[in-house]
């Protein structure tokens, strides 16, 4: 620890990046930069977010994924299915009280599916 501090002054930025990276890999979290960006987009322009708040959000998101995934995979287990699919995740979200997300998510998937349908038609015309 002392060695880091001795070299610290000029490498402060690198140390932060390293720390973030280690933390994210060891505890399996989404990158703080991505999380911070989403938070910032929602807040008014002249506001700040403490690093601790971003780290707490990282923890919460990982916990959210685990929480919902467990519910979805339990449903699969009961139905004797091996693969957790998108519908299972949607179902788990609604079951756990995140039903407000269902609308935007279905629009999101529909947007990608439209793109997919357009590709499919294009491919069929070629073939």
């Amino acid at each position, binding site marked *: 620890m002392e060695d880091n501090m001795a070299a610290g002054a000029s490498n402060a930025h690198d140390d932060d990046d390293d720390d973030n990276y280690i933390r994210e890999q060891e*505890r*399996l979290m*989404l*990158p703080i930069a*991505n999380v911070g960006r*989403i*938070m910032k987009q*929602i*807040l008014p322009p*002249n*506001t*700040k*977010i*403490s690093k*601790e*708040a971003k*780290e*707490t*959000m990282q*923890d*919460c*998101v990982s*916990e*959210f*994924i*685990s*929480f*919902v*995934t*467990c519910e*979805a*995979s*339990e449903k*699969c287990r009961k139905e004797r299915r*091996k*693969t*957790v*699919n*998108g519908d*299972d*995740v*949607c179902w788990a*979200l609604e079951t*756990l*009280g*995140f039903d*407000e*997300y269902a609308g*935007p*998510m279905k629009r*999101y*998937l529909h*947007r*990608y*599916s439209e*793109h*997919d*349908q357009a*590709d*499919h038609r294009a491919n069929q015309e070629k073939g």
Partner: protein
Amino acid sequence: MRQAGIYSGILAGGRTGPHLLPLARIKKIMKKSGDNVNMISGEAPIVFSKACELFIEELTRRSWMVAMQRKRRTLHKEDVASAVITTDIFDFLVNLVSADSTNPTPFASVAMETVLESS
């Protein structure tokens, strides 16, 4: 086959718009969630990438309301903790936000407490 199409369309495209969160990392977190998590379809992490974005937005919005009540322009960890505690659907996070910074995993700390109490 629509499901496979969505996933490959996004991988091949990029013009469908970038995801805000890395899909491979989401998948790793899903796999680590429990023993009975076997296989994960291609679109499940994609569904999560949107759901996580909405989750972050909601928790941030609520945390910000707390910060404003406290007349601050900087969002702090305590604001996030308050938002968690006062929102029913975030109950699963209560232990996480009130745990020590040295031991943030709620399931681990709850399990440890149970072991210590029974011994």
